[in-house]
């Protein structure tokens, strides 16, 4: 089992691309185990991973990975870290087993060990039968798997997975998430899963760090963050006086300190702090001339935590 000390700490880290700040004074601590790095596109998740790998030098701040200073010992860190990049990436002109073995050798494994590990890891990620095919002929899902294989071949203590299910079909996605979960729970590898997909993070991770616009906006154990400090209601409304009444209703909810956001299914999720009940919601709807057609108490989800943290409606 991994130890419980933080595997990564960031202390007031700022990263700038010209005038644009990709990370702004970020201080965070990643516990051992599987930690989700959650946020919308452009939140700074990938930038954080690249800074931790030493690809990007921060403008200010300090970072430690596995107890080592990123600025002082980048090679020692990279020998203990595996990185699965977000975009397609491979060494051109190689078949899968040569590619993964080559990555093992680059990480310091002797050639024979690297080749043996390459075969094992390719079977583990489900590419055993396709391991002699040129990587350039792989489908998107297979390319995701080979990126995981090259990140695992040198047996890292810590894995950075940047959008690991990008472009995968539902079956492939489920298999990838099972692999990630297995690595964290059964193989003793610490994981950082960067994703904008809440279900992926919720399935694979115990902890989450939520980022938005280059800042950490929430962090902690997922179970703890989902603990209700109030009640959540699912709400569907009818707007007899036109769509502008919805804005009035949402405005009145906010004035009363009630968080609300729309889901994909055109259902509002309203967070009522404390012991507040549905009565207050009915009263506000009536005062805004909005008809409540459906109201159901719900369980807080990671999506609620995320929406609350990034302040979306």
């Amino acid at each position: 089992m991994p130890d419980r000390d933080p595997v990564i700490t960031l202390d007031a880290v700022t990263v700038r691309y010209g005038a644009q700040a990709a990370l702004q004074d970020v201080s965070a601590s990643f516990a051992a185990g599987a930690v989700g790095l959650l946020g919308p596109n452009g939140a700074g998740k990938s930038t954080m991973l690249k800074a931790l790998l030493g690809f990007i030098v921060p403008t200010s701040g300090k970072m430690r990975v596995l107890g080592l200073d990123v600025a002082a010992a980048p090679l020692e860190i990279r020998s203990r870290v595996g990185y699965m990049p977000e975009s397609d990436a491979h060494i051109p002109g190689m078949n899968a087993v040569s590619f993964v073995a080559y990555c093992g050798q680059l990480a310091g494994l002797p050639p024979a060990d690297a080749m043996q590990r390459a075969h094992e890891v390719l079977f583990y990620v489900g590419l055993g039968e396709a391991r002699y095919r040129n990587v350039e002929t792989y489908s998107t899902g297979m390319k995701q798997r080979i990126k995981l294989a090259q990140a695992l071949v040198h047996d890292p203590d810590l894995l950075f997975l940047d959008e690991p299910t990008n472009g995968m079909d539902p079956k492939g996605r489920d298999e990838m998430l099972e692999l990630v979960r297995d690595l964290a729970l059964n193989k003793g590898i610490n994981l950082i899963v960067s994703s904008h997909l809440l279900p992926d993070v919720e399935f694979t991770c115990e902890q989450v760090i939520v980022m938005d616009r280059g800042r950490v906006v929430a962090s902690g154990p997922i179970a703890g963050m989902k603990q209700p400090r109030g009640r959540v209601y699912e709400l569907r409304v009818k707007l007899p006086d036109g769509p502008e009444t919805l804005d009035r209703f949402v405005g009145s909810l906010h004035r009363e300190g009630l968080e609300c956001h729309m889901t994909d299914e055109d259902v509002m999720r309203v967070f009522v702090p404390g012991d507040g009940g549905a009565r207050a919601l009915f009263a506000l709807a009536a005062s805004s001339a909005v008809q409540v057609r459906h109201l159901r108490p719900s369980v807080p989800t990671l999506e609620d935590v995320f929406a609350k943290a990034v302040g979306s409606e």
Partner: protein
Amino acid sequence: MSPIHDQGYRRYGGQRARHGRAWAVIASAGVRTLFKKRAFLGLMFLAWGPFFVRAVQLYAAANLPQAAFLAPTPQLFRDFLAQQDAFVFFVTVYAGAGLIANDRRANALQIYLSKPLSRLEYVIGKLAILVGLLLLVTWVPGILLLIVQILFAGNFTFFLDNLYLFPAITLFSLVRVLTAASIMLALSSLSKSSRYVGVIYAGLIFFTQALSGVLRAVTSSSSMAWVSVESNLNQIGDVIFRLSPRADLPWIVSLLIVAGLMALSAFVLERRVRGVEVVA
């Protein structure tokens, strides 16, 4: 019941090499990949053609009295290396154009640099591929020719009379090869298309050579030969082989230009070889 062989993930408890050796992994993999290509093998075979012709010349000079006019001189070795320039060009384009460009196309840089190797190691590994191959068509046949001369002559007279030839062949081959390799590697880092890189390199060599020729015709002097990469290398080569420089140009100028080109290449590589491309 446990499986006979578990194909699941296992932790690794074996040895790991110390940092600083990944460049050799890159270099050996690159060379192996090239030697698997028939076209490249054919090119290398052709590149050794002049060596065999010169070897026959040395044999005839040593063994046939009527071929005494073919007796070796230091100029022979300088001319041999000049002949190899064409093969240096073709090998540089064939083997060098895709060295970084292909990695950039496949986003391989972030794979490389997420492993325990520095950017410098990556560049040294790539440079070693090209330098190694180019030395195979310059320094190796040059030195072998010297050995062949000794073997055919059956004495060390020519070698001892021209002791500077061994360091001259070595030094000029290194200058020639390092210049071509560093320029090509820098160009390769600027694009994702190896074809485009090859065309740019060829353009750089031929355009500067043509420009030098035009300036020579216009000014009736070879003092402007410094605009050509090849002319500068020829100038340095003549000085190293203790021959009269062919252009009316101080050799130190040529040396400074070649050093400047290498410095510029190093600068470009420092800017371009990164794990992440930042477009600010």
